[in-house]
């Protein structure tokens, strides 16, 4: 996935720290995720760490099991709890080191780690709460490779820019070669070719052109107002990205098929349902052909099918899990 000769260059320090603040939502309303981890000795917690502190084991939790972990999380007031037998961790480290090869395919190496954790989850020596996070343990290297190929095609670049009052707030350009991601760059890598780009809603094309010349043909260009992006990260709501695009607070150009599929997934599902209901009713009334809704439904169906492609590819519906993740992140579960 990442080239061992990965080049990381041309990044303005101010843009890097702005991006970091944005991603970690420093100083915003999003609360720090309360989480805990426990190290176990035959089910008995020998270490319980929550909220960056060692904490005493609450009464009644002398042993942690799949059945009691939810109640323990509630008692600790955390939303994510990982518990692992110390010996199981030791086995995982040993097994991983047995099977890893220096310079080997990182996705294969990730698969080795996932497989070992899955064994631990299956035999109860590793407990993850809430358990929907264990969905990732179904992934294998070929699946991850296919997913990467779809999301970030070979010999292409991904461009992510945010702007604040028409100035660059953060900038990132990733380039994938014939196999791995080879370059992580910033605006300094294209600055001389871009020159002036304001207003960014027009000038973003100059950035795309420069990125294509310096790096590779863009497969995704995401340009947005910092505030709009922050709102999305802060309080994700269905249809928010679509709305931002319509208001030109965010421009996605080029928009890869997978992104089109993810765009406003709720809205699309809703639109699909409405369209299909309408056709059904129109058909019943003998008006279906007259309204010619075929193009709408074909588009919606094709987008949904793309969604289904992901499900087939990964072995689970990523959007379903994304929705559950967002709900969990927002504290609604």
């Amino acid at each position: 996935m990442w080239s061992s000769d990965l080049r990381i260059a041309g990044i303005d320090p101010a843009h890097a720290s702005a991006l970091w603040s944005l991603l970690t939502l420093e100083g915003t309303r999003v609360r720090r995720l309360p989480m805990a981890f426990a190290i176990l000795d035959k089910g008995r917690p020998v270490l319980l760490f929550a909220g960056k502190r060692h904490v005493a084991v609450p009464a009644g939790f002398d042993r942690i099991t799949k059945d009691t972990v939810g109640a323990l999380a509630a008692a600790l007031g955390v939303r994510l709890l990982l518990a692992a037998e110390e010996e199981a961790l030791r086995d995982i480290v040993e097994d991983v080191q047995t099977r890893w090869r220096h310079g080997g395919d990182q996705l294969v190496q990730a698969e080795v780690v996932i497989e070992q954790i899955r064994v631990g989850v299956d035999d109860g020596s590793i407990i993850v709460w809430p358990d929907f996070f264990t969905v990732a343990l179904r992934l294998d290297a070929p699946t991850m490779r296919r997913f990467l190929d779809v999301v970030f095609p070979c010999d292409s670049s991904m461009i992510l820019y945010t702007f604040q009052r028409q100035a660059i707030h953060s900038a990132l350009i990733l380039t994938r070669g014939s196999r791995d991601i080879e370059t992580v760059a910033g605006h300094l890598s294209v600055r001389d070719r871009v020159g002036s780009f304001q207003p960014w809603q027009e000038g973003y094309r100059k950035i795309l052109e420069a990125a294509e010349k310096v790096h590779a043909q863009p497969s995704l260009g995401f340009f947005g107002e910092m505030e709009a992006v922050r709102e999305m990260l802060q309080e994700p709501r269905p249809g928010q990205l679509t709305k931002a695009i319509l208001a030109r607070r965010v421009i996605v150009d080029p928009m890869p098929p997978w992104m089109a599929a993810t765009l406003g997934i709720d809205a699309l599902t809703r639109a699909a349902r409405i369209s299909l209901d309408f056709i059904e009713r129109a058909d019943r009334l003998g008006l279906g052909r007259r309204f010619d809704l075929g193009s709408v439904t074909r588009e919606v169906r094709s987008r949904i099918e793309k969604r289904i492609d992901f499900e087939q590819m990964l072995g689970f519906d990523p959007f379903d899990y994304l929705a559950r993740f967002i709900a969990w992140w927002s504290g609604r579960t």
Partner: protein
Amino acid sequence: MTARFCASVHYFRTPVGRWEAILDRLSAAGIQGIDVYVPWNEHEREEGRFDFGEGDPRLDLPRFLGLVADRGMWILLRPGPQVNAELRNFGLPDRIVRDERIQARSPRGRPVFCPSPPVFFPAPSCASPGYEEEACRWFAAVGGAVGDAGQVRLVQVDNEAALFFREAPFDQDYRPEALALWKEWTGERGMDGQDPPIRREPGRDGLVRALAWIRFRRWMMARFIGRLREGLARAGLRGPFSHNMPPSGLWQPLAGADLAGVVDVVATDVYSTAAGFAQARDQILTLRSSEPEPFAAEMGCGTVWYAPGVTQFDNRFAAAAGLAYGLKGFNLYMGVGRDRWIGGLVAEGAEREGSDLLHFIQRLIRLMGVVGIQELEPVSGATIAIPRSYVDHSLASFPVPGGSPSLLAALGLPVHEMLVRDDWGLGLAVQSAWMERVRAFQEALAGGRVPYVISDGTHAAGPGLLLVPTYRYLPRDVMAKVLSHPGPVVAGPEDPLLDESLDPLPEDLVRAWKDARESGSLVVARDVDSAESAAAIAVAGRSVAEGLPYEATLVPPHAEILPYRSGGGGRWVSWIVSASQPGSRIALAPRRGWGWTRMLSIRPRAPGGEFVQEKGDGNLVIDLAGTEVHLVEWRQAGVE
């Protein structure tokens, strides 16, 4: 003493055509030396065949050193064998890390992977003769290339010894040569026939075995560094030789005492945010107890690509706060922006422009010349001694296989909260208790306005107050140092009865301890805020305050004043480092005949305006807005 300010330039990552412009720019900014990494895997074309510019001009080390020398700049040379530098395999050739004769081993004989993004690699073993031989062959090649080029002022041996950040207590090193060394080491200490522990074991015996294993690994690391030093000397590199500790606060895999006699200079690395500077402070204060010229071999300037949260303000704060706590110089890492690094004094491709950070450092170096950093003598009223066995005890209590306490600490995570709290049959979880006690000492000293240093207990402490956490066991050498301390001692909460092997302490030491208690020179305080302890700290505070040219009339919590004396006391400099709440203020009233000049104020706002020249002979009042550093010079009236 000589102040040392240098900067790292990776010639092999910088276009040859820009070398001179970069060196000129740095030299013009007052940078006196260049830190030169010489990475093995860049220069080795194939096994035993090296390119030092014969093939690739980018690798022309002699020419680069010559350009440095032409500008009158000196050199900090880093030939490795591992240099990290965010390079693949930390700069080691693939053939080295893949060589089974060289790899460190887990308890089950597996390779041990170093967690270095983007690609982990098998860590070499410091017990491997093959690794040592290969490294020395590499040194010979470097020695040949360096020759007499340049003025090498310091040669750094290896880098941040931390078992490649796989120092969890039972992760490594179980390769046969390491086990042979273990046998030899235990035999010499009357512990023959013991297999090394491979997991945490309960009870006192388990603790004794774990402590011995961790102590052995420190010895093994130091032994390796010593042998590398010899290899460098054989290669014609004359030294003096240094080694740098990782930026891990009190979680250093090696103690300074381990390297005494192994290298000439022990340095530390400082990568810190302003908010998390307490850890760097502890490292610098520890260095001060053993090094006459505390030096940061790496002072973060810009940031590594996987820690982009470090800002330019953090860089400015850390450089100034490092000097405030006692550094006499530092190497700015990086002097020029490059691959896998964000920022630096000179941005990539913009050597003519310079950066805000470059302008700041230029003025800071100039200011250090004005205040005469070389002549400044730190005033210290106390020493906190932390017996290394207690640190080892904490390491033995780290329960995450594959984890690295030193790396987690370097990333700012609270490792002390991640320890199991077993008492190992001692009746108390010493592994966390000593840390809480040291924090309490630090708070009490800050509250009493007593500047202090930190020691591992094996160096002689200064004449002031000595504070040492003591529990049921205490290493014999530390106990002997405590008893021979010329000043008052606050120990506790327990009287030691056992040594580091949990054998009873010799009767003469126990008797001497009891006598010291009875004479009043030694206080064993159950709590740091006990009356006896508080009284000792108050006496130390008064002793320091009496000599100062000012009286601190208002000092809010989380603000420290670090005084330095110069010219026999005719001139003083005070650094103020604060993490106080906005709205608080500090007030210093000059003693009769003294005046002050505020010269530096670093605050979390846009760069510029830090270097001020405010003078007065009335009360100095500074409004504090949060995390900031100030520098004030004090002179007697009429003295220029």
